[in-house]
Structure formats: structure tokens, C-alpha cells
């Protein structure tokens, strides 16, 4: 009995908190049939925003995956001074508000008053109010996701297989490609998917660093806000629906594909 009560509570909780609101977004997006969706897909500025969001997310995910796997290996396989500090630092992006991240990045890379920005600007490289800044902010907020997925998997598989590979003649690169990577594959994929979902949806940090220029640095989440504030509810819901759709689809696909014993 207690088991069913608990189950019911959890289902109700998830329903009211996640499923029902998400459903309503979808419902509102299709309130006028396909009009809202076709409306935004015919607006070149919105298409630009969607494309920018996807580009930024893909670049950010690639960067976070490469560094995430590297840092995970460092954390799990090596001992070095300051390791605990590094591990704690990796949680900062999750705990600090994205808007603070945005402001911090402006302080460092801002073109006029930033600590590092003017030098980059003189070298012809604008970070804040342009795509690199958006990528940077997105990388920052999604930084720990791959690491948090990969570290426990690396710990669980241990390093005996890697040692066996070394003793069989494999060098470090061969060992990584043939042994380590296949054994952490699902952790990496799951981390990539979470990062992708997070990157597509980033709002606060991006809002500060992008400058929000229509048709140039305005991303999909910023479009949603803009449309919502300008009483274009239909467009806002349609864009929001597309964002949610991609993220949810990613996560569902992976949890279906992921083999049971790896969970």
C-alpha cells in the first residue's frame, strides 16, 4: 500500500511540475493549428536565431565533451595537488546563477573595460556581443554535465583493463581509443545529451553577453522572451515548443537506446 501511495505521489509531482506545464506549452503552440509554427519558420530573423542556437550548442557541446572527458580522466586516474579544489570548482557553474556567469564574462572579456577583452579586441577578436561570447557563456554553464556523467563510470570500470591493454603493447592513445572510450561510451553520450539540452536552453548568461541583436546575436531563448514580452504569445510558445521538443527528444532517444545493464 505504502509503495503505491509513494508511486502515486511521485507521478502526481512529476505530472504537475513537468509533464502538464510542458504539455500546455505544446497545446498553446498549436492553438491555431500549424499557424504559429509556420509563422516563426517563415521569419528569417527567427530562423537565424534558431540556427545560431544550434550552432552555438553544437560547438559548446564539442568543447565540453573533449575537455570533460579529459578532465574526468585527470580526476579519476591521476593524483595531483589541488585535485579536490579542482573537483569542487567544477560544480561552480551549476551552483552560480547564469546571469552572474554572464556578468563575470563581461568583466573579463568585455571589449572596452574588460580585463582581457581590449587586448583581444585589438587583435581583431570580439568576444562579448558576438558569437564567441555566446559560446563561452554556454560552455561555462554546461561545463560539469559531461564530467559528472563520466567520472562515476570511469571509477566503476577501474583501470585494470587499461593496464592490461598497456601490458599487451598498446600505447596511451591506443589504450584510450580501444579500451577506455568504449567502456565509458554511454556516460559520454548521456553527458553529451544533457549538455546539448542545457546548451540549447541557456538564457541568462547568453542574455548578458550576446547583446541580443536581432538577426545577429539573438538566440532562440531570447526570441521566446522577446515575443512573450511583446504579446506575441503564439510565436513565443511555438519557439519554446521547438526548444523543448529537441531537448526532450534527445533525452528520450538516449534512455531508450542505452543498454539496461549500463544504467
Amino acid at each position: 500500500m505504502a509503495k503505491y501511495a509513494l508511486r502515486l505521489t511521485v507521478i502526481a509531482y512529476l505530472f504537475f511540475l513537468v509533464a502538464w506545464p510542458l504539455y500546455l506549452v505544446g497545446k498553446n503552440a498549436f492553438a491555431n493549428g500549424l499557424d504559429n509554427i509556420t509563422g516563426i519558420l517563415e521569419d528569417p530573423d527567427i530562423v537565424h536565431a534558431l540556427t545560431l542556437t544550434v550552432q552555438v550548442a553544437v560547438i559548446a557541446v564539442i568543447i565540453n565533451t573533449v575537455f570533460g572527458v579529459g578532465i574526468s580522466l585527470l580526476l579519476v586516474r591521476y593524483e595531483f595537488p589541488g585535485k579536490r579544489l579542482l573537483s569542487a570548482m567544477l560544480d561552480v557553474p551549476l551552483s552560480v546563477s547564469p546571469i552572474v556567469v554572464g556578468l563575470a564574462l563581461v568583466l573579463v572579456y568585455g571589449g572596452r573595460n574588460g580585463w582581457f577583452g581590449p587586448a583581444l579586441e585589438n587583435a581583431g577578436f570580439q568576444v562579448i556581443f558576438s558569437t564567441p561570447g555566446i559560446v563561452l557563456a554556454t560552455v561555462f554553464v554546461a561545463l560539469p554535465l559531461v564530467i559528472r556523467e563520466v567520472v562515476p563510470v570511469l571509477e566503476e570500470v577501474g583501470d585494470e583493463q587499461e593496464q592490461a591493454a598497456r601490458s599487451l603493447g598498446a600505447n596511451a592513445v591506443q589504450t584510450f581509443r580501444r579500451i577506455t572510450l568504449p567502456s565509458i561510451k554511454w556516460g559520454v553520450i548521456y553527458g553529451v545529451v544533457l549538455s546539448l539540452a542545457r546548451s540549447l536552453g541557456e538564457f541568462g548568461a547568453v542574455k548578458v553577453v550576446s547583446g541580443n541583436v536581432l538577426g545577429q546575436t539573438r538566440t532562440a531563448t531570447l526570441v521566446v522572451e522577446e515575443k512573450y514580452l511583446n504579446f506575441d504569445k503564439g510565436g513565443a510558445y511555438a519557439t519554446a515548443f521547438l526548444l523543448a521538443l529537441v531537448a526532450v527528444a534527445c533525452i528520450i532517444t538516449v534512455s531508450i537506446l542505452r543498454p539496461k545493464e549500463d544504467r
Partner: protein
Amino acid sequence: MSIEIKNVNKRFGDFVALDNVSVSIPSGQLTALLGPSGGGKSTLLRIIAGLESAESGTVEIEGLNATKLPPQKRNVGFVFQHYAAFKHLSVARNVAFGLEIRKRPKDEIRERVNELLDLVHLRQFADRLPSQLSGGQRQRMALARALAVQPTVLLLDEPFGALDAKVRKELRDWLRRLHDEVHVTTVFVTHDQEEALEVADEIVVINEGRVEQIGSPDELYDQPANDFVMKFLGPVTQLGDRLVRPHDLHLQVGERDAEAVSGRVTRVTRIGFEIRVEVSTGDQVVTVTLNRNEFLSLGIGTGAEVQVRVAPDVPAVVRAAA
């Protein structure tokens, strides 16, 4: 000599794992590193394989100074206690791994893998994943994988430690037979003295990071260098200031004997074919083991007055540390 270890030291933090260890391991033989848990056996084996580095000292493998070589350049086969099977690869691909790394032609790899799978009786499991094998089968796979690259030396770290007693015994006999066939210089770690005595040609006894004795099973058993080795290799009891094996003691009744010690039987225990008699000599309780016939012909029981004597020509007598 196939493996020459000279003055190797290894510390983990403040803890001394190996203390100036020097060992020569002969070619083509089966050598056991024997000792209690935590004594440094695995550390020494891993230093030979290059999986761990020594702070000082040298390791030579077949005349080649390997001290600074990374593991992949040492051409050693290593078998882990928990198999270290490549979980995502089939049995055949596991065995083929070292050959694929060495970029051997496909045909040659297939032929060699089949040969090895026959050797370890796993041919019919070639396409299975390691998770579909039993522990014993996994370990045979790991052995085939290590042998595939034709290593100069084969190193096994408690290879049967994770298996149940029956499979362990089977694999032990099988390893001995395999070694008689393949003749690769083999070093295996064990904390089981019976396993070492039964399988090895040569035993290195290691305790607390030091080598206590090196010798054949007979030498170790009959001429232990010190009381640690004597105690570790089999049951011991103390008579006066001498450590002896309980079956090397004789009991007699009646006539006095200058070399014998008098005492009173305090306890008689029968364990299968063996009778264990405890004799109190006043300040000591000495354990003597006899077979059933010897015991019956003495006609003694608890409380009987007896004399205990070390059997003549018992080579293994050591003065016990005070």
C-alpha cells in the same frame, strides 16, 4: 637468469612496500612469489611488468635493462586476479588484442587466436562476451590473451584467487601442465603455500617488503632459512627452543631417553586419518601428529605419561626466536 631484480625499493607515502629487494628468476621455470597478504608481492610483480615504478633499483628482463621501459615495451604477459577482461570485446577479440596492436596480418591473427583458444579450451566460446563466461573461463581467456603476444615472461597476480576452491584446484593443475607445454618463464603471486608448493619449480618467500628465502619447494620445506618461512609453509610446534613440524615429532612411552622430553597428554583430536596429540611438558604445550596405526600401537590416551622426541634426520629444525 631471465629476470634480474636488483636492490628495488618502493614506498607508498611513508609505507615501505619493498625494502631493497633483489631476486633472480630463472628462465623457463614456474616461479611463485609467496607470502602473506600485504607483503609486497603484487607490487614486485607490477614493477616487473612496468605497471608500477620503483624508486630505486633495476629490473632486467632477458638481459635487457627494463627499469625505465613503459609496460607496452616490455613484452610481458600480465594476468590479473580479477581477469581485467575487455568487457566490450568478444573472447576472440580479447585474445587478438595484442596481435592487432602489433598490426599482424589478419590471417595470422585468426590462426593464432584459434590455436590459443584451443589451448585454453574456449574455442566454442570465441564469439561470446566475457560477461557470458564463468570466472574460470574468463581467467583462461585472460591467460590466452597474455600468451598471444608470445611474451618473454608471463606474470600472474593471484590468478586463481577469485575462484572457488574446486575450480582453483583444477586451474592450478592445468597451469602446471600448460607450463610444461609452453615453457614460457612464468612468475605467479599467491598467498596460498599449498598452491606454491604444488605448482612452482622455485619459490620466493616475501614478507613485509623483504625476501625471506628463495629456493625449490623441497629446500624451503626441509631447510627453511628462518622461523617465518618455517611457519608460513606448514604447521609448526615448539619443543624447547626448537620449531619443528608436528609430524616430525615422535612419541614414546616407558624407557627414558636423553634426547626426549617428558610430558603428559592433555588432549587427543582425530582429524580424518590424522591424530593430533597435545602434550604438556610443564612449561609448553607441544602438538604431535601421528597416523592412526602409530597412535593405536602406543596405546595412550588423555593423561598418559609420554616422552616427546624430534625424529632423527629431520633437516628442518630452527632455533625459535626468543
